[in-house]
C-alpha cells in the first residue's frame, strides 16, 4: 500500500469522494481484497466467491451493476471489464444511508442517485428507457425461483406493470400513441419511494457486527 503516509492520504481522498468514514473504508478494503484475492482489481468472476449471492435471483443484475459504466460514472453505456477499489467504493456509496444532517436539497439529490442506480438495473441497454422487454426480463428473473411459473405469467405480469406505469405517467393515451418505455422521471413517479435504497441496512456491516 505504499508508505503509511500516502495511504492515509488516499484514504482521505476517498473519504472525500465517496463519503465513507475511514473505518468503513478500511473494512471495505479488506472485503475488496478478500473478493479479489489480493489483486488490485475485481472482475466479474470474482463475484462467484460470494456464496449467498448464488441464491439471489437478480444476481446477474447485481454483478452487472458493479461494472456498469453509468454507475461508475465513467460513461453513458457499456460495461467495464474490471474495477478497482475506488470504483468499488463508488458503487458502495450508493448504499450509504442518507445522512440526515444534510439539508433537504442534498437529501433529495442522494435519493435521486440511489433511484438512478435502481433505474440502471432495469435499463440494461442504457437507452434511458425501460422498455417492455427489459421489464419482462426483470420480472422473469424475480420469479425465477419458482419452477412452476411459466414464462407466460411472468410476461403478463410485466405487461400489467407496464400498463400501470403507462397510465400513471401518461394518463389516458390516445389509441395510436406508442408508449416507448419508462424514463427516469416516470420511474420516479411510479414508485412510492419512501424507503430509499439501502437505508442503512446494507452497510450496517460496516458499522460492525450487530
Amino acid at each position, binding site marked *: 500500500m505504499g508508505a503509511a503516509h500516502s495511504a492515509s492520504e488516499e484514504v482521505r481522498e476517498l473519504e472525500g469522494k465517496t463519503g465513507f468514514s475511514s473505518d468503513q473504508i478500511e473494512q471495505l478494503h479488506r472485503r475488496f481484497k478478500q473478493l479479489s484475492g489480493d489483486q488490485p482489481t475485481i472482475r466479474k468472476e470474482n463475484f462467484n466467491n460470494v456464496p449467498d449471492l448464488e441464491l439471489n435471483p437478480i444476481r446477474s443484475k447485481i454483478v452487472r451493476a458493479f461494472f456498469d459504466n453509468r454507475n461508475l460514472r465513467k460513461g453513458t453505456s457499456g460495461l467495464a471489464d474490471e474495477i478497482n477499489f475506488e470504483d468499488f467504493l463508488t458503487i458502495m456509496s450508493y448504499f450509504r444511508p442518507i445522512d440526515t444532517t444534510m439539508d433537504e436539497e442534498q437529501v433529495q439529490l442522494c435519493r435521486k442517485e440511489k433511484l438512478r442506480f435502481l433505474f440502471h438495473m432495469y435499463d440494461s441497454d442504457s437507452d434511458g428507457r425501460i422498455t417492455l422487454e427489459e421489464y419482462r426480463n426483470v420480472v422473469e428473473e424475480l420469479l425465477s425461483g419458482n419452477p412452476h411459473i411459466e414464462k407466460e405469467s411472468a410476461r403478463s405480469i410485466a405487461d400489467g406493470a407496464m400498463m400501470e406505469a403507462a397510465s400513471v405517467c401518461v394518463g389516458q393515451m390516445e389509441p395510436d400513441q406508442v408508449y416507448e418505455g419508462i424514463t427516469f422521471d416516470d420511474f420516479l413517479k411510479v414508485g412510492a419511494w419512501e424507503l430509499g435504497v439501502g437505508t442503512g*441496512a446494507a452497510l450496517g456491516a460496516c458499522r460492525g457486527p450487530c
Partner: protein
Amino acid sequence: MGIRGFVPFCPWNWCLLLATLQCCGASSELNRSTDSSARRELNVRYAAASSQPAETISVFTLDYDYVQIPYEVTLWILLASLAKIGFHLNRRLPGLMPESCLLILVGALVGAVIFGTDHKSPPVMDSSIYFLYLLPPIVLESGYFMPTRPFFENLGSILWWAGLGALLNAFGIGLSLYLICQVPAFGLGDINLLQNLLFGSLISAVDPVAVLAVFEEARVNEQLYMMIFGEALLNDGISVVLYNILIAFTKMHKFEDIEPVDILAGCARFVIVGCGGAFFGVIFGFISAFITRFTQNISAIEPLIVFMFSYLSYLVAETLYLSGILAITACAVTMKKYVEENVSQTSYTTIKYFMKMLSSVSETLIFIFMGVSTIGKNHEWNWAFICFTLVFCQIWRAISVFVLFYVSNQFRTFPFSIKDQCVIFYSGVRGAGSFSLAFLLPLSLFPRKKLFVTATLVVIYFTVFIQGITVGPLVRYLDVRKTNKKESINEELHTRLMDHLKAGIEDVCGQWSHYQVRDKFKKFDHKYLRKVLIRKNLPKSSLVSLYKKLEMKQAIEMVESGVLSSTAFSTPRRVQKTQETKRLSPEDVESMRDILTRNMYQVRQRTLSYNKYNLQPQTSEKQAKEILIRRRNTFRESVKKGHSLPWGKPAGTKNIRYLSFPYSKPLPAGRDMKVAEFTDHDGSDSELPPITFNTHSPTGTIQERRWTPEVIPMKRLHGAGTPLHFGYRRNAGREEHLGRGGRAILRPKPLFHAVDEEFESEEESKEETPAFGSLLSSELRPGGDCNVSHSPLLQRK
C-alpha cells in the same frame, strides 16, 4: 356461525358441571372423612374398621383420602384440557386472546369451587415442588423449540436486551416502589429496600411468548420474534437468579450490614451463576448428543435420554448453586441439533410432543394454584402499592425498551423500528413465573407477603387480560398501516427488487464478520463435533423411511417454492408495443399480486411461526404431506379407473393431473443410479409411481387448499400438438422447468443418487413405494419416446 358458537359451550358446560359435582362430592366426602382422618394412622385403610368396630364387612366404601391428591390434580389438568379444547374449537378466540387468559380463568374457577365448598385445598405449591418439578419442563420446552439460527445471529442483541432489560426493570421498579413506600401516607413504611428490590425482580419476569399467538398472522418479522423469544427464554433465568441472590441478601444480616463488598460479590455471583449454568448446560447437551449416537437399537429410550439429561443438567447446576434454568436452556439448545439427526423419526416426534405435554401440565398447574390463591382469604389490598406497581411496571418497561433498543440499534444491521419497539413494549405480559416467585416468598422474611402476592396477581391479571386482548388489534393496526401502501404491481416489484438488491449487496460487502464467525463454527462443527456426535450411517432397514424423507423433502421444496393458487388467472390483453391502455381490472391486479407475493423468491427474512401451547407442524411439512397423499390417491384412482391415461379423461373426483411414468425395464442388480428396479406389481393397488406433478388442471378449481395447482386451460395441452411430455426433457438440467409446449412441469430434483436400489416391494402397508426412484431418470426415456407414451404405461415388462 351459529352452530360453531354453540359447540364450544357444550363441553364447557357439561365439564364444568361435572367438575363441580366432583368437587362437591369430594368435599362432602372429605368432610365426612376429615373427622375420622384425624384419628387415623397411616395404614388406615385396612384398620378403618378398628376405630368403630364394625360387625359387618362393608360392601361398599369410599376412601377419598387415599387418592385425594392425585385425583384432584388429574381433575384439574383434565379440566384445563377440556377448556383448551373448547377454546380452540372456536376459530376466533385464539386470535383474540392469549391462551393464558383461558388458563387463568380455569384456575380462578377451580379456586372458586374450592373456596365455595370450603374444601381443604390440596397440597399447596411449595418451593421445592415448583423449582424441582414444575419449572424445568417449561424452561426445557422453550429452550428446545427456540429456532437456533436466528437466535445466534441475534445473540448479542438478545443478551443485551434480556439481561439488561431484566436488571433495569427489576431495579427500577424496586427503587421506585421503595420511594413510594417512604411516603408515610400509604402505610407501607415497613417494607425496606431489599424487599422492594426483590419484589421488583420477581415482577419483572415477563412471559411474552404467550402473546405471540395473538399476532401471529400479522407480518411480524423474524428479528422481532427472536427478540421476544430470547427475552422469554432468558428472562426467567435472570429473574430467578436475581431473586435468589436477593433472598440470600435478605437472609443475611440486617440491611445495614450489607457492605459494598457484598454488593460486588452479588454482582459477581450473578455473572458466575449465569455463565456457569450455561456452561454446564452445554456440557450436558454434548454428552446427551453423544449418547444418542449409540441408541439405534433401542430407540425407545431415546426420549428418555434426552429428558433425563436435560433434567440432570438442571439438577447439577442447582446443586452447585448455579442457574439451573440457564443450564437446561443451554442443554436444550445444544443438543437439539445433534439429537434430531440421531434419533429415529418416532422418537423425535415423541420428544416434541412429550415436551409440550409436560410443559402444558406444569403451566396449567401453576395457573390453577394461582387461581386458587386468587379466590381466598389471604389477600391484603393496599391501593397505593398496587396501583403504583402497575404504573411502574409499564413505565419501566417502556424505558427499558426504548433506551436499550436505542443503544443496540446503533450496532445492528437491521435496526428495530419504533413500531417494533412498541410491540415489544406492549407484549410485556406477566405470567406464571412471577406468581410462583411471589408465592414462594418466605413469610418469615416478608411479613407483608400477602401484599406482594396480591399485587402480583393484579399485575398478572391486568397484563394478561387487558394487554393480551388488545395487543392483537394493536399490532394489526400498526401493521395495516404498513401494508396498505403496496397497491400496485409496480410497487410490489420494485420493493422486491430492492429487497433482493439489499440482500445481494450485503452479501457482497459481506456481513462478513458474521460469516467468519458462523463459518468458523460451522467448519469446526463439521470437522469435529459432527463426527463425534452424529451416527455414522443410517440403518439399512430404514430404507423406506429414507424414501419417505426424500419424498417429503422434495414435496417440501415444491411447496416452499410455492405452488400457485388455483384462482384462474386470466391473462390480460397482451400489449404489443404497449399501445393499448386498457386498465387492468382489480381482480387481475389482485391475482397478479397474489402470484407475485407467493412466488417471488423468498428473501431470507421469513417469519417464524411459534405457538407456545400447541405443536403446529411446519406448514410446509403439512402441505408436503398433503401433496404426497394427494398424489398417491389420485394416482391410485387413475389407475383404478381402467388404466387409462390421466389426461384422456378427467381423473375422477380430483382434478389434479398426474402423469404416470411407464414402467422401467427392470435392471438386473441395477447399480445404475438413475434407474430403479421394479418388481411386478399385481393388482390394482399397485402403486405406480407418481412422477410429475403437472401443474395444470382443467376448468374445475380445487379450493380446498391454497396450494392446489394452477389452472392452465386444458385445451392448451392438446393444442400443443404433441402428447404430453412425461416430464423430462432430454437435456434437462435441474433448472429446466418448461416441458414441451411451454408448460411448466416440475421435475423432482435428483435427490436419490445415494440410495441403494434394492426395491423389492415392501409390505402393502408401506405406501411410499421405493419405486419412486425411477422417477429420476430422464435418461430412461430419451425424449423421442414420447410418442409411444401410451403403451408402456400398461405394459408389464
